[in-house]
């Protein structure tokens, strides 16, 4: 086969590969939380780490997939009808605030639960008003309840 014929064969193959790569990069939807490896931690420990040493906690947990175990303090629905589970911490009024991807109706107050999700860090409270910040977990799934 002549050089010209090789080129005619390979150029379209390369172009299709590049287009496929760009398309898959553009349309990918992010990490699969259910399948991802997760670091295990309890809700009170996670909250305490962020409260006591935020920069250390950021390097240990921020944007990582965690499996957080704890006790349900309260559940509610957000504006998009997603279930939000608040896990108890040692600080009154503060929670590990988990937004679930799946609808779950049987999570009652006081129930032990393990939730897997991405840690997005500590929000902002208002110390003057006595509102402590929450530590947020997003894209969550309940592992055990």
């Amino acid at each position, binding site marked *: 086969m002549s050089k010209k014929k090789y080129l005619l064969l390979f150029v379209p193959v390369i172009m299709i590969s590049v287009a496929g790569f760009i398309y898959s990069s553009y*349309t990918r939807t992010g990490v699969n939380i259910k399948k991802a490896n997760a670091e295990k931690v309890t809700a009170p420990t996670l909250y305490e780490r962020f409260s006591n040493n935020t920069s250390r906690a950021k390097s240990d947990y921020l944007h990582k997939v965690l499996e957080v175990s704890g006790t349900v303090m309260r559940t509610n629905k957000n504006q*998009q009808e997603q279930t939000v589970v608040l896990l108890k911490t040692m600080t009154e009024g503060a929670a590990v605030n988990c937004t679930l991807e799946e609808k779950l109706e049987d999570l009652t107050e006081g129930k032990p639960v393990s939730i897997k999700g991405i840690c997005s*860090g500590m929000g902002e409270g*208002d110390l003057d008003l006595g509102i402590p910040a929450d530590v*947020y977990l997003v894209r969550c799934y309940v592992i055990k309840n």
Partner: protein
Amino acid sequence: MTNTIHTIGLLTVLLFMSARVSAQKIYTKNGRIAFYSKTPLEDISADNNQVMSVINTQTGEVQFSVLVKNFRFKKALMEEHFNDSYLESGKYSKASFKGLIKDIAKVNFKVDGSYLVSVSGDLTIHGITKPVTAPCTLTITGDKTAGSAKFFVRPTDYNISIPKVVRDNIAETIEVTVNCNYDQQL
């Protein structure tokens, strides 16, 4: 016996009413802020359902705070560009608003209904603070208060530079929608 039942009933009503009147600060940690960019090439939207917001129902002081990283896009690549290149969420992790509902006096938190008010304050994004004024609707239903507002921001006002290659994909003015159910009180 009937009198005792009436007295208990009256006390319950009074207790409920006093709880409604005495709540001066209402707040949520799971409010929603969404933005929407529309261009002929592409529509882009993102949601953040981890918004902390507090309203002082007496003075009208209001504040919002969000972790920028919690804005969620349909496509992971958009989310990466938003965080790494445009909003630089590693450096400027939070966005916030502090302001005042000047006409809070016209809202009767004891009477169900929708009240149109005006909010003015300082919006901080990407480390830059600019004044913002927006109409806001407060809806009172029983002991629950919901707030909603819509306003527009220009990325260039907050030193957010959009690379030339995607400039036509992102609107010059972004629509911001706020919805909060104030489900907790102090």
